[in-house]
Every structure is written in C-alpha cells, then in structure tokens.
C-alpha cells in the first residue's frame, strides 16, 4: 500500500507543477507518460496472460497512423480524432487477434511480429496515403470540441495524456481484478486446465489482445499530435522490443510496473544518450540482468522493499492463480 501512496503523491506533484515546468521538461514527461501507457497495454498480454507479443509496435503504429490520417483529412476536434483513431485500430485488431491466437507460445510471438512487419510493409505499399518512408508531417492539433483550445498548448496536452493514462489505468485495474482477469490468470498459469473448467480460452485471449491493442493504439494516437509527424519506424520491431523491455524491467504482471518502466527508460535514455554513446549497450545489459536476476522488475523490488510492516494485498488475478496452483 505504501508504494501506491508514494506514487500517488508523485503523480499529484507532477500534475500540480506541470504549468510551471520548463517546456523541455514537460515535453519529456509527456513522452514518458505516453510510453508508460504503451508499456502498460502490453503487460495485459505479457504479464497477465503470458502471451508474449513481439509486435506491439503494430498497435502503436496503427493508432498513430490512423489518428494522423483522421486529423489531417477530416478536421475533427483533437480528442475526437484520437478516439476515432483508436476505434479504427480496434477494428483492425480483431482479425489480427483472431489469427495470432490460433498459435501459442513462441509461434504467437512470431505471428505478432509478422503483423507488425506486415504493417511496416503496407506503409510502403500505400505510399499515396502514408507517405512511404517519408511518413506524414504537419499534423495539426485542431481545437474543440465546443471551441475548447486548451489541449493545443503543451500544458493542456500534458493533462490530456495524463488523463488518458489514468483512465486506462482504472480500466485495466477493473479488468484484471474482475472475473475476466481471473480467467486470464488461469490461462497464464495453466491454459489446458482453464479450458477443462469450461472456459473458452481462445475467446478470452482474443478479447485481451484486442484490449491491449486498443490501449496500445491510444498511446500511438497520443504520440501523433504530440510529435506532429509519423514515420514507418513506429512499426519497426525494435519499438516492439523496447516496449517489452520496459514491461519486464518495470515489473510484468502489475499495472504500475510497466508505467514505471516506460517512464524510467525514456528519462534515463534521454539523460544517458547525451553523456555516453554506450547507452544502447547498457540498455541491452540492464535488460538481460533484470530477466535473469530480478524477473519481478523495479516495481517488484520496490514493493518488496517497502513492504516492511504490512503485507501488500495481491490483486485478484494473482490470488486466483495461487489458489489454483
């Protein structure tokens, strides 16, 4: 519990000081939060269902590109445009989820990777719309709805991102503590057993993949007006790898962990890449060290350290799984 309180205080502090932060810091924080949301969405698959996706960039890229095209061509107000981009991505995610969940384990990982690469290839195929390797630039932040122009500024945009992250966090918390989340935990621990109990595990897996893609595309959609341009690199497999690293280093199987991982890496990367050329090397080494030595991630280590007086209640999914095993 103590960890969560500390975190809530930090979040409140950031929100309160946002209007007086230097523009540069605010931009960095906004980017970090977008990646935090992206990492959290992936963790629904990786940490809660043990569906290893190596193509989560597909969700990010889909959200980014559909939002870019909608904002450019339809002149919708900014928040509506973002929501429309997410809606388009969710529709596309359904057949992807259907195909990917036909396989399990490593094949699943490779299939998700293939879809991301397919998306990358399609950007070159439909150059007229996507700009090919140039991407799309000059994406506006239209005002509205109702003439509201708050989100056009840096500070307003930060609050928009923070709001989306908080809303997604609440949505995910409800999801993973619900009976739905308990079934996901069942799939994670023993899919055959869960199926034998009468659950249609395939349907649950499709559902969680679609939700994860939806929230991942929200992160991508938020990135588009933030950066003002989109490029094919958003679909690249290194993006998928990076976000997976954020999840694992932050703490897979929790919701806060991946957010911390995303924020941690964006900040660290920014600081270190200015100091040393060796940063990517360190990135790889840190990642390997966490997988082998501390699979519970930063948040896992932190809660273990903070849990000195009172035991932290675990979420329903984990309780269900530990009861089952």
């Amino acid at each position, binding site marked *: 519990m103590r960890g969560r309180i500390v975190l809530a205080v930090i979040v409140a502090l950031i929100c309160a000081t946002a209007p007086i932060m230097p523009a540069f810091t605010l931009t960095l924080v906004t980017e970090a939060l977008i990646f935090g949301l992206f990492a959290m969405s992936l963790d629904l698959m*990786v940490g809660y269902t*043990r569906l*290893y996706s*190596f193509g989560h960039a597909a969700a990010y890229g889909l959200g980014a590109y559909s939002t870019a095209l909608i904002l450019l061509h339809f002149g919708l107000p900014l928040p509506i445009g973002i929501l429309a981009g997410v809606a388009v991505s969710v529709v596309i995610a359904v057949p992807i989820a259907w*195909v990917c969940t*036909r*396989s*399990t*384990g*490593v*094949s699943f*990982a*490779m*299939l998700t*990777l*293939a*879809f991301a*690469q*397919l998306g*990358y*290839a*399609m950007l*070159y*195929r439909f150059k007229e719309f996507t700009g090919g390797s140039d991407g799309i630039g000059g994406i506006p932040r239209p005002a509205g709805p109702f003439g509201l122009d708050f989100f056009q500024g840096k500070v307003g945009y930060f609050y928009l991102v923070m709001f989306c992250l908080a809303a997604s966090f609440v949505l995910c918390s409800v999801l993973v503590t619900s009976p739905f989340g308990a079934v996901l935990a069942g799939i994670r621990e023993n899919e055959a057993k869960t199926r034998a109990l009468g659950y249609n595990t395939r349907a649950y897996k499709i559902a969680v993949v679609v939700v994860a893609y939806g929230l991942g595309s929200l992160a991508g959609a938020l990135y588009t007006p933030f950066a003002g341009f989109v490029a094919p690199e958003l679909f690249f*497999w*290194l993006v998928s*790898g990076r976000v*997976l*690293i954020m999840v*694992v280093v932050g703490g897979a199987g929790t919701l806060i962990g991946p957010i911390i991982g995303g924020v941690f890496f964006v900040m660290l990367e920014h600081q270190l890449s200015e100091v040393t*050329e*060796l940063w*990517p*090397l360190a*990135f*790889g*080494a840190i*990642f*390997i060290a966490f*997988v*082998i030595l501390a*699979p519970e991630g930063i948040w896992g280590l932190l809660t273990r350290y903070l849990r000195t007086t009172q035991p932290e209640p675990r979420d329903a999914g984990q309780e269900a799984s530990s009861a089952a095993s």
Partner: protein
Amino acid sequence: MNVAGFLAAQSLNALSQGAILFFIACGLTLIFGIMRIINFAHGGLFMLGAYVGYSTVAWTGSFWASLLFAPLVVGVVGGIFEKVLLARLYARQDSGAYLMVTFGLAIILAETIRLIWGPQPLSVPIPDRLRGIVLIGNQPFPIYRLFLIGMGSAAALLTWQFLERTRAGLLVRAVAQNAEMVHALGTDVSAVRTGVFALGCAMAALGGVLSAPLLTAFLGMGTNVIIDAFVIVIIGGMGSFLGSIIGSVLVAFVQVFGSYYFEDLALAMMYLLMLAILIVRPGGMLGKEE
C-alpha cells in the same frame, strides 16, 4: 528476351538466396528443436560472422580462411552465451524469458559490432576463383551465386547425414525427443545443449560470411535476416529440419519473383504467404500443432 532463360536465371538467383537463408534458418530450427528456444540473437550472430569474416579476409587475404575462422569464433561466443546466461533459465520453463534474454544479446551484439567496426558498410571482395559469370540460356549469371547454391546444398546434406547417421546426431535427436530420459541414461544433456547451440550459431556465421561479398557487411543485416528466418521456421514448422529447407527455398522464391512480378507488394508477400500457411496449418507445414 528468352523467357525460359530468364526464368532459369531467376530461379537460380532464388536458390542462391535460399542457400544463405538456409544457413540461418537451419541453425535456428536445430536450436529450437533441442531447447525450445527461439534465438533472437541469431541475426546478430549472422552479422558477427560477416564482420569477423571481413577482418579475417583483411588480415590473411584469404576468403577460405574466413569460412573457417568466423564460424569458429561465433560458435565459441554462442557456446559461452548459452553456458553463462541461458543455462540459468532452464529451470524456469518460460519460453518468454529465452526470447527476452536473446533479444538483449541481439542489442548488445549490434552495438558491439558498431563500436568495433564502425557504422560504414564494409565490402568483402569475391574471391578470384569465384569471380565472373556463366551464361545460362543467354542470361549472364554470377559464378559466386552458383557457389552459394553448392554450399547451401552441401550444408543441408551434411547436417542431414549428421543427424541421421552419426552417434552425436542420434543423441541430438534423442534430447529433442525426451531430454530427461537421455539424462537418466547417463548422457551429459547440458553438453549436448551447449554443443547444438554453438553449432547453430556457427552455421549462422557461415551464412554471414557467405553473404558479405554479395551484400557487404552492414549494421542492419542481422535484423533483415532474422525476420526472414523467423518466417521460414514458422512456415516450415518449428523445429523441423526438412521444414527449414523447404521454407528457405519457398521464401527466397517469393522474395525474388515477388519483387519482379508484384513490385509494390514485394515486402508484404512473405508475410502473406506465412499467414496463408498458418491459417491452414497453425503449426507450419511440417510442424506439430501445439
């Protein structure tokens, strides 16, 4: 234009590309068959092979020396990686952990190579004896590509004979079937694992050395080839040796003919092929359904 000659030349072209792909896909599938590990670093090891090959040619002036030395170096690197890092994860029985650790290694390899050899592409000359062209129909065809087809076929034959006819190959197949039983019968299973992992890495390196005279040694080569190799092993069936041969040839043909006949779909063709096969057979052509 002579259509038959053109088709023959393009087919040989595809076969030579398939030969390079086979080197990496075969190592990948051998490792997967034994250890249930998908080695994400395989592309990085392929790339390391190309760069070590470049340096060997630069020092000794002999392409043939690089064909021996680079796989040796990369095999040792792979063996050490397996012993020091991967072996710690076997008890966890979590396929995702392997994927992540090898992904970390892929990043480290790419960065290390960039630090040692720099960001510029390095060209490796085609050895004198393999330079020049032959006429096929009336289409000119590089001799080096014929050499690649020969090397690929020889490697496929040798690996097959190794698996089917030698005692070591028998052990490898036995470990793939039931590692615990082999262990109980008194074989050092962990040594077999290390050996197969090193062998798979060495094969990837050989592919890297062979591809360098065609494509130069460059930093993105590992990424390009690992994605192709994943597609191949999924199409062929995870862990199926024959599947990796069929998959390599199939993917190479799709790439070569796809880029000629369906220019704007060329990049996507391979993935569409894979999706089509997986929708019919989720385990791949020769794989078992999980």
